[in-house]
């Protein structure tokens, strides 16, 4: 299966990533539920990871995969902390609607 890019083509993967990324962005903008927003961010992250792997294969270089590995580690940490923050927000405000988080109002 080494010649997958011969068959599918890097362009398709790029388009797939772009669309996935844009769906993530759309989710971030569209939803008010902080958890869904979080999920959207994960989708964006995965879009990028996918592209990384695609290019890693394209260049026949393992570094891209190593990078994805690290990015997954960071994502795991980020999700853990982020969700903890959400939990504590929920405890304090009783809601995780981001429209309610307006303490930064100048």
């Amino acid at each position: 299966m080494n010649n997958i890019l011969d068959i599918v083509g890097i362009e398709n993967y790029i388009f797939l990533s772009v669309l996935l990324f844009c769906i993530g962005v759309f989710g971030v903008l569209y939803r008010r539920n902080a958890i869904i927003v979080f999920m959207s961010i994960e989708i964006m992250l995965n879009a990028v990871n996918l592209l990384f792997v695609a290019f890693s294969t394209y260049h026949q270089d393992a570094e891209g995969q190593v990078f994805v590995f690290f990015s997954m580690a960071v994502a795991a940490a980020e999700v853990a902390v982020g969700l903890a923050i959400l939990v504590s927000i929920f405890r304090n405000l009783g809601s995780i609607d981001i429209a309610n988080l307006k303490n930064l109002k100048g």
Partner: protein
Amino acid sequence: MENSLVLLLLLTPFVGFLFNVFFGKKISRNVSGTIGTIAVVVSFAMSIFFFMQLNQTGKVIQVKLFDWITVSNFKLDFGILLDQLSLLWLLFVTGIGSLIHLYSISYMHDDENLHKFFAYLNLFIFFMITLVIGSNLLVMFIGWEGVGLCSYLLIGFWHKNQDYNDAAKKAFIMNRIGDLGFLIGIFIIASLFTTLDFVELKEIVLGGTNSGNALLSVATLCLFIGATGKSAQLPLYTWLPDAMAGPTPVSALIHAATMVTAGIFMITRMNFLFDLTPYIQEIIAVVGALTALVAASIGLLQNDIKKVLAYSTVSQLGLMFLALGLGAYNVAVFHVITHAFFKACLFLGSGSVIHALHGEQDMRKMGGLRKVMPITFATMLISTLAISGIFPFAGFWSKDEILLVAFQNHHIAFAKVLWVVASIASIMTAFYMFRLMYLTFFREFRGTEEQKHHLHESPSLITFPLIVLAALATIGGAINLPGSNWLNHFLEPILVTKYEHHALGTQEYMLMAVALAGAIIGIGWAYSKYIKQAFVPKEDSAITGFSKTIYNKYYVDEFYTFLIVKPLNGLSNFFRTTLEPALGKVVYGFGTVANGLSNQGRKLQTGSIGLYLFAFVIGVCAIIIYLFLAQNIA
């Protein structure tokens, strides 16, 4: 040897000053006074020594002590110049100074700050000597300002009275107005000739052709403004009558005999410059004549014995300036000297009277002192005769010469007018001086009973200087009698324009007679009014009409207050209360603008995360578009 003697001459009074400042309180009062007096006497002795030496050898002494101020194109030394003019001045400054010091020992005996008084007097003598013997204009300026300072200190000597302090302040500030003129004059001269040294200056001026230079006229005018401040001429004369707030010896020494003649000294020093600027000379002559007339007319109605003398001083100084303006420097100098004698004597005499009356200065409360104070009376009478110009007293000769010069002048078209003005001033002088004599010494005493009991002749320390000065006032004219003209010859090296010797012809004798007649008219007028009619000046409130204007000194002080002091204070208030906060507000304005912008900016921060995210994504879009698409298109 010579240098150290010069230093001795200069520094002895200063040492006396330091001594009295630092140890004056600890030593007894008499010692303090004595040391002060000795310091001046030493200087006097030195002056005589140098005078003798100069007379024998004719050699002018120049000493350079050290470099002082350096400016780009010339250096100013701390130098000393002892020539005929400075020695002449030294002689009478230190001479009369010694006498007045002596007099003060007794006069100020009861004052708690006696040592300070002597300290200041010594300091004054020191600065006066500096003024006189400085070898360049700026050293002269040190003395010039220094005597102003001492004058300030001594006028305000009784510092608990704010009126006296006001008078002192006024004197200092009016002098400073003149000083600014002087300084500007110095600047112009420095830039024209790149030196301020008298000797070099004279050489340059005489060597070059600067006669038509307009800037030179400005320079001499500025110098003259300086002189009007120091020598109390129109329009800066008003400080001098006020300066009578100081103790009487001060009035005698500083405000009659010595300091106020500094302006005449300076103009005589710079005669080579003034000779080149005839217009300024005309101005000087006119100002002098006018001052003489105005001051004399004010003197007519004053009731304070010292004020009368003060206005008389202003008036006499005016006559001297008239002589200067007419180019007769030697005549002016002659009058300075005789005036120093009789005016010092008059002031000291009035001091003696005031002393006897325990501080009473109003002539309406005097009278009949002739019998109680015979020596004071006699000496003052002599001096009064001298100032009125009665033959053969000193004043007759000098004043007559001024009138003569005015009458015979051919350079100024209106010289005859000046002569008339000066003559009128002389008649007035004779009148008010004899008015003073009559009110003070004749008829019966008008003071309180208590004063009457304490009336006494002053002690010998007071009368001795009086007698000496009266003697000088009698024979002082001898230094420049029309026949011998010793002073004229003596001053010849100093003056550029040679003095035309008058052959004593008919015209001269006629003028003398006219002058004498004028004086006698004045005396007679006074006699008829104050002896015959036994007139006593009215109370202040009873004075009306033009007399009131004169009595209030033509309201000149009020005029100045209205014209200068009030606007200045108003301006100050305006700046302080209006302009300053306004400027502050402008500065704060920047802060306010920044604040307002920040307030507007604050509203952008809605705190809504959704909005931020939109902005963020659109921003990223924009950046991407700019980076990739816009550049490709371009």
